[in-house]
């Protein structure tokens, strides 16, 4: 009989192998599912994972999806490390898009150089405000951060709908719930003419490198790591929980806000009701898959963006519902949590374990 034995030290190898194993198991699960649905599993897997990277246009579209995923996931990684259960990236992203659009619409007929910076700043600040309210409620009134951030996601969605149906609607838009199309001066420059990828993705990568640096080298990063590992020790060391909470939450809000404004000032080019296909929720999985580390998020956001892009392709080519992407994300997180068991435990044969202990 195989036995489960606790490890003396958490396994470094399993920490990094677990995401890969989880992805592998998810792909097996997906292949079985597609076979059951009479879809060719090899073709489906090719569309989901290989095709998104096969030509310049697809890679560009993949990068468009990677930007917001990465930005949100980097912020969430720091939050979760500090034991702050911020589920509000989706709402902060939507409000970032709303605030950014309100600013961009001031420059519809203008081409001044400061239009784009102001739009981005408006988006970032809007995201920070949306993160600040639940943070304040947590610190002042001890309210549950998970539930308040979730509620703020729903409130943000309706606020966005209100904006796009009301004050921000294009007066010459024949009543469609859309804002006016932004001026070129408020659009993020494209990386190349071959697609919609814009310099927002460069910002996202630079910010994840910055976050990795902060986490590894700064005093703030040290505090985040200590709070995540042992809250009592952090308090004993005199670290200020309130300050840290503000810093991490506002940073996450700023990144999610930037993600939102980069969507409206990037590939979309105006404010519409459907800004995000749930990037803020997917970013939770990206953060976990990336081991709550900004550099890990860089890899896992790439994978998740490929999956999103592949989902689009599989829908067009094989008629597989796009919802399959959401389901795969859930399965992936299940497998990841299950594989993480082996970071702290190992399987042994009873006869061996007697000698080793």
């Amino acid at each position, binding site marked *: 009989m195989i036995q489960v034995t606790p490890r003396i030290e958490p396994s470094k190898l399993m920490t990094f192998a677990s995401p890969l194993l989880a992805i592998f198991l998810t792909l097996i699960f997906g292949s079985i599912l597609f076979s059951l649905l009479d879809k060719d599993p090899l073709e489906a897997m090719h569309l989901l994972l290989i095709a998104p990277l096969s030509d310049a246009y697809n890679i560009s579209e993949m990068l468009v999806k990677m930007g917001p995923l990465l930005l949100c996931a980097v912020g969430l990684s720091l939050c979760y490390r500090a034991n702050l259960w911020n589920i509000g990236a989706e709402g902060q992203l939507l409000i970032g898009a709303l605030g950014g659009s309100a600013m961009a619409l001031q420059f519809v007929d203008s081409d001044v150089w400061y239009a784009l910076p102001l739009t981005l700043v408006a988006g970032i600040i809007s995201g920070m405000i949306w993160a600040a309210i639940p943070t304040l*409620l947590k610190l002042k009134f001890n*309210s549950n951060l998970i539930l308040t951030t979730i*509620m703020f996601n729903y*409130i943000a969605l*309706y606020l966005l709908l209100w904006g796009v149906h009301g004050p921000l609607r294009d007066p010459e838009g024949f009543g469609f719930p859309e804002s006016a199309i932004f001026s070129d001066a408020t659009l993020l420059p494209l990386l190349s003419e071959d697609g919609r990828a814009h310099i927002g993705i460069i910002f996202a990568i630079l910010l994840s490198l910055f976050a990795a640096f902060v986490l590894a080298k700064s005093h703030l990063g040290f505090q985040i790591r200590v709070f995540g590992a042992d809250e009592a020790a952090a308090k004993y060391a005199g670290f200020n929980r309130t300050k840290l909470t503000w810093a991490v939450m506002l940073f996450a809000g700023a990144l999610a806000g930037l993600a939102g404004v980069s969507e409206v000032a990037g590939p979309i080019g105006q404010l519409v009701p459907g800004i995000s296909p749930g990037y803020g929720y997917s970013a939770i999985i990206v953060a976990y898959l990336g081991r709550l580390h900004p550099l890990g998020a860089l890899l896992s956001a790439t994978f998740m963006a490929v999956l999103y892009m592949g989902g689009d392709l599989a829908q067009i080519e094989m008629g597989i519902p796009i*919802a399959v992407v*959401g*389901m795969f994300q*859930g399965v992936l997180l299940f497998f990841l949590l299950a594989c993480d068991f082996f970071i702290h435990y190992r399987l042994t044969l009873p006869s061996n374990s007697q000698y080793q202990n």
Partner: protein
Amino acid sequence: MDIDFITQILFAAIKTGTPLLLIALGEVICEKSGVLNLGQEGMMLMGAVVGFLAAYTTGSAGFGIIGAILMGMIMSLIFAFLVLHLGANQVATGLALTIFGTGLSAFVGADVVGQTVQGFQPIIIPLLSDIPIVGKILFTHDLLVYLSFALAGLVAYVANHTRTGLVLKAVGENPNAANAIGIRVLRVRYCAIMFGGAMAGLSGAYMSLVYTPMWVENMSSGRGWIALALVVFASWRVGNIMLGAYLFGLASIMHLVLQGMGWSISPNLLAMLPYVATVFVMVIISADQFKEKLLAPKSLGKPFDPRQMA
């Protein structure tokens, strides 16, 4: 506002509060055993879609209910296995369950979006429904609303007046002590989590078979999350949950009330009301830290690992 209008509002508040009541009754039992399952939304959506599919294919709403309950239990078993056996983080696993359920329900329900089924017809209870006002509000509903009344009574009775309730409380308050006196902690938690799953599934079926009755992606629109807040609001007491569910039901139909009173506010702003109300209530409830610590099950969210007991 005349009396008929108020009667209609209160009738609608009960109808709207019922899915919240059902799901919160399951979650409170789960939390009393010390397990926080954030997967309510996912289980509810799976219950809704499977219930709808079962009723759609068999033509019987009864099969829909059974299917939804079973589906909720299966979903909760995935969660239970991960958090109880593999010691996975309850918050992360619950989120995974919600993301998985949202995606899977949209996937399997893609073909029946926009279809309708024959749901439950209202059952007017003789005599009781003749009571002025109250009779109209309480006794002219469908079968599932009456079932939710009965379930609330049953859960309150079991939790407060039976040995099962005591065992549940012991496990939630101090799993180590419960284990020491021979209670199988993990088994109790499995049962509590599965009860939560069954109730979430039933609540989903209420949405797709009675309330709308049809299947739409994401049709629970945050009710699973509101139910979690409701449990905190109710201080983990079943009686309060019933009151809270109907108050939230009232908040959700406030836009109809205000329209009826002749106000004109953007429907999108009014749609925020239940969520704003949830935040507002949570702030008021949680502000008293001491009280919340006193009322919440002591081991809530903390794993129990019998392997480390020996």
